[in-house]
């Protein structure tokens, strides 16, 4: 079987690259952590990989605003290649800081537009918070979310979050209507049974409690929670998981590896 190759794009301040690598490796992929300077030198190298990952961290210290400097850098130095990659339908994931980067360069929600039309702003709680949350996996009656990353997940899963700027907002109301209409909302913060959560289960004040979205096609996925921190049951606060061994985060990476292998 063909080995799936994953590119984890890193730069100064990236800090979730190793656990993201482990998560993909656990799903049978071959992973390379590549510094942006290396990729900029050889831009076409990006097309050698089946999956592109923007991991969590504090790129450039989150100075100015989270993910801002990196998203500018990518747009200016790799914009053409990244857009082409995105439109090719290959899986792309942005986790936490990676999600902030995707949104701020405009690869989400619409890679064709490739323009920032939404943002991840300061949490309503006013501070960085690290805790576990429940996430409702959005499934429309009749039509499941088109997101290729979240197949085979139960209605509600839990994952850890750790961010200070995770409030997903936009200027226009239509924006959210479109997201809903196009099944682009992937995860919402929820209570244990999928209902309305209370603080601290939701601390950032996201519109419609959005925790993760995808593009219309479903190959590009961005989320604030950290699936790579829950690939083993052991990582759960009460050591819960599936097959008495794995955490639900693993399914997310497995989906992409399987998709890329098809």
């Amino acid at each position, binding site marked *: 079987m063909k080995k799936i190759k994953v590119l984890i794009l890193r730069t100064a301040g990236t800090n979730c690259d190793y656990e993201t690598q482990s998560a993909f490796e656990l799903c049978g992929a071959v992973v390379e952590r590549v510094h942006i300077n290396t990729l900029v030198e050889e831009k076409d190298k990006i097309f050698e990989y089946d999956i592109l990952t923007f991991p969590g961290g504090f790129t450039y*210290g989150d*100075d100015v*605003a989270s993910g*801002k*400097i990196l998203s500018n*850098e990518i747009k200016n*130095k790799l914009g053409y290649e990244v857009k082409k990659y995105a439109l090719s339908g290959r899986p792309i994931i942005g986790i936490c800081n990676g999600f902030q980067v995707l949104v701020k360069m405009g690869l989400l929600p619409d890679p064709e537009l490739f323009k920032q039309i939404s*943002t991840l702003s*300061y949490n309503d709680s006013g501070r960085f918070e690290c805790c576990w949350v429940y996430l409702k996996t959005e499934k429309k009656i009749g039509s499941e979310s088109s997101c290729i990353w979240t197949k085979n997940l139960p209605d509600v899963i839990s994952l850890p979050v750790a961010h200070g700027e995770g409030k997903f907002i936009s200027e226009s109301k239509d924006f959210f209507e479109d997201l809903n209409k196009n099944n682009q909302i992937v995860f919402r913060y929820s209570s244990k049974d999928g209902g309305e959560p209370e603080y601290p289960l939701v601390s950032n004040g996201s519109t419609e409690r959005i925790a993760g979205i995808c593009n219309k096609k479903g190959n590009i996925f961005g989320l604030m929670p950290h699936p790579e921190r829950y690939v083993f049951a052991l990582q759960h606060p009460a050591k819960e998981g599936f097959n008495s061994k794995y955490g639900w985060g693993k399914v997310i990476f497995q989906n992409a590896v399987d998709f890329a292998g098809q």
Partner: protein
Amino acid sequence: MFEIEILTKKGFKNSRGEHVLSDICGLGIENVTKVEYSSLYIIDGDISFAETETIASDLLTDKITENYVIRQRDAECLSEVISKFSDVKEADMINPNFSVIEVWYKDGVTDIVSESLIKAVKDLGIAKEIKAKAGHKYYLYGEIFRVTLDTIATKLLANVLIQECKVY
């Protein structure tokens, strides 16, 4: 030398300002009714207004939630506003009931935001040697005595050992 101020657009939460307000209440000061925070940057060097505007709009401003104002600035104080968006607090500017506290690092103190900023300006394709400085600006609303402003500045917003503040 240009000063860029990044303001939160109306209708969006100014979390940092709200946080400061609750801290002010924590000091036992009651007559501050509202606080708005905006970040400040000074860009110095052989740089044009157009380039400064690119930096402000493409790098420093979150288009969804923020606006910017660019001011020409000489070493001492700011002067006229030379570019701004329409909904910047014009009404507020003429409201006498607010005061401002600006906080800047003293020269020689490590200012890491400005270090990142210089890198990011290069990424924008502006290949000039610039100097940058990052600061904070707090608008405090309410009838506040000067001595109270000084207390807020020194007990809460700035550490005078390494930072200087301007109160006006």
